[in-house]
């Protein structure tokens, strides 16, 4: 979509005054900053690997796939992460949730396979951002090693085990309730309306397998 001309604000650089044209204040400022580093010297080098690195809270390491309260994989296989991924390292195969299993009654689909190529991944965090159900998150695990490329293809079980390993360590809290989630994950928050009129237990329509079908 072209940008509307009236939405564009043009900003001009302010003209320099006399002192600014000499550049002397800028030179003095620069020297002061240099001097500050000399007088207030503080080493920033970390003694890794002898001392474990102190990572920022938002560090983006190896991915994990979260579990929901019932221990199921939280992912709904919507493939938003695979769509958002600039490195195209996520491969998901979706499967219909088992229809007759009461445990899965609130879910339409789930990932049959979920593979992240940790070697292709550029650890940008787009998958986290894209996920509507906070199923994929990046952990603080950074020391990722493997003896083969195949080992670095993390499948669903591996990613779930990363979750089990990191959920209680304190560095990677489960952010499930950080805000409002998409309805795809929290359907139970929206209870269904009851019928307008109560259906009695001995009503023929209440006993039939599908409403409205009278089998007798």
């Amino acid at each position, binding site marked *: 979509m072209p940008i509307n001309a009236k939405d564009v604000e043009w900003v001009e650089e302010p003209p320099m005054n006399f002192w600014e044209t000499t550049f002397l204040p800028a030179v003095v400022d620069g020297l002061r900053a240099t001097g500050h580093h000399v007088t207030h010297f503080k080493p920033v080098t970390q003694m890794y690997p002898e001392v474990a690195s102190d990572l920022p809270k938002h560090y983006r390491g190896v991915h994990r796939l979260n579990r929901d309260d019932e221990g199921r994989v939280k992912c*709904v296989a919507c493939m938003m992460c695979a769509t958002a991924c600039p490195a195209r390292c996520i491969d998901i195969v979706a*499967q219909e949730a088992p*229809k007759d299993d009461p445990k899965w009654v609130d879910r339409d689909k789930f990932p049959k396979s979920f593979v992240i190529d940790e070697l292709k991944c550029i650890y940008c965090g787009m998958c986290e951002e894209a996920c509507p159900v906070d199923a994929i998150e990046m952990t603080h695990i950074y020391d990722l090693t493997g003896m083969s490329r195949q080992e670095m293809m993390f499948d669903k079980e591996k990613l779930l085990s990363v979750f089990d390993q990191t959920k209680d360590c304190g560095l990677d809290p489960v952010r499930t309730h950080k805000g409002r989630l998409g309805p795809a994950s929290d359907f139970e928050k*929206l209870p*269904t309306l009851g019928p307008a009129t109560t259906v009695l237990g001995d009503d023929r329509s209440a006993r039939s397998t599908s409403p409205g*079908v009278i089998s007798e």
Partner: protein
Amino acid sequence: MPTVIVNNKPVEIGASERLNCIQAAERAGIEIPHYCYHHDLSVVASCRMCLVEMGDKKPDGTIAMQPKLFPGCQTPVKDGTVIVSDSQKVRDAQKATLEYLLLNHPLDCPVCDQAGECGLQDYSYEYGRGYSRLQEPKNIKPDKDYIGDQITLFTDRCIMCTRCVRFTREISGTAEMMVTSRGTHEEIDIFPGEPCNNKLAGNVVDLCPVGALCSKDFLYEQRVWWLNSKNSVCPDCSTGCSIRVDQNKDVLYRLKPRENPQAQGSFMCDEGRFGWKYIHADHRLKLPEQRADGKVVSRDWDAVLPAVRNALQDAMLRAPGKFAVVVSPWATVEEAYLLATYARKLSPTARLVLGPVRTDGEDDLYPKDVHGQPATPTRFTIRAEKCPNRRGVEAVLKQIQGSVIEFNDLLDQVVRGDVETLYVLGGDPAGWISETDAAKLDKLKLLVVQDLLASAASARAHFVLAGGAWAEKDGTFVNHKGLAQAIHRALRGPEEARPDGRILLELAERSGMFNAVSLRKEIATAVPALAGLAVGELGEFGVLVNAPAAAELQPA
């Protein structure tokens, strides 16, 4: 000429045309959003998405607007009709309608298969409010996962446009689907014990503007924004429905009908829709093969093709009169032309044979009446002739040879020993030769089979050339009434399989690469019956191959 004014833009319509506001606005290039309206179905005006302001321009130039909004789909236009679809009043109505349609919609777009091609998403973005004021829990209805063998219903996503119900009543005539209950309890359902399994059932999924009716075949296979589409033609009967081939990473996922008033209309049958699975079958021919004494000598195109050429030339020296070529009616016009001209170059007396034309019962006409008999007027026809291009191949063979030899006659000639060298261009996915017929081919001194799937003939062949399926090649199909439509290469074949046109071009040692457009121009001059191909690019709707056929199609 009657003139309609749409958003201050005058549009001329035909004197005898009966258009509604949506169609008239379309002429002016203005979209009036709609869900329940479909030009092939009856009008119910139930979704209220197409509400517009209407008025009349009087002969003295004054305009009298009506105070209420009108559903555009239900309101015909005439000379002087004024339609306003961009006023604040209309926009407010559209916002309110969308908010209402979304009241109970679950907004589960991430897990919905329709996301990306969804009418609700598109119109919400274009005309919607962007937020919901509903503070009550949504009314969630249980899914019905068996509407038909191929159809599942996510009841809560439905907006009750009833397009599917009207389709089964008006186009297929089988009337399996219905609306149960009333008001907010309305649901789409099937009659008990009457699943929607008619041969046109898949169309209700296409008609559904939201993700309520989904195809079980495609369910959760892909997100639609990953699919790459190419226009093509359904190869499963001589109706030649215009279709779209949706693939991703060389895997075909689904076929969708493409609207073409000249070919079939807006729909396609389930035989064609789900009939493409052989493209990824295990018994596809994937490599070329050169065999000698039952052993494979080479599987390399660079070795096999020259060997075929040499073998054919040797055979011509031996017995030039005993050479025959079979062109399957699944081949494109270009392939038939390349092979026929090549054969005639090798031997001027080469016999040109039309491959077996598979037919299945009678033409299947829709809609059906209550007794299952075809009712008039016919809205859709599944033809008994199951090959897409008999007319195209016949036209080429007739032009070059004068007449067409039937495949059974050829088998007799082979048995009599009149044919020693045979080149077969196959393509019938259901298998074109039986074991007993193939046994007759044992007498041949040289058998070259260029085909899609392994068959009894390819097992006996001295040379097997792995060809391409229709979705893997460019070319032209001519349907039952002489409409030539272009098919396009949408995906690559398995392993070393090549498009048949390319194989034949290289075999005939013609210069350049296979280009359907330039070949069509060449064919148009060489074959007068296919003169319509002279345009080269056949466009979205195709062209009629010759003038008599065109005259036949003109409305009286």
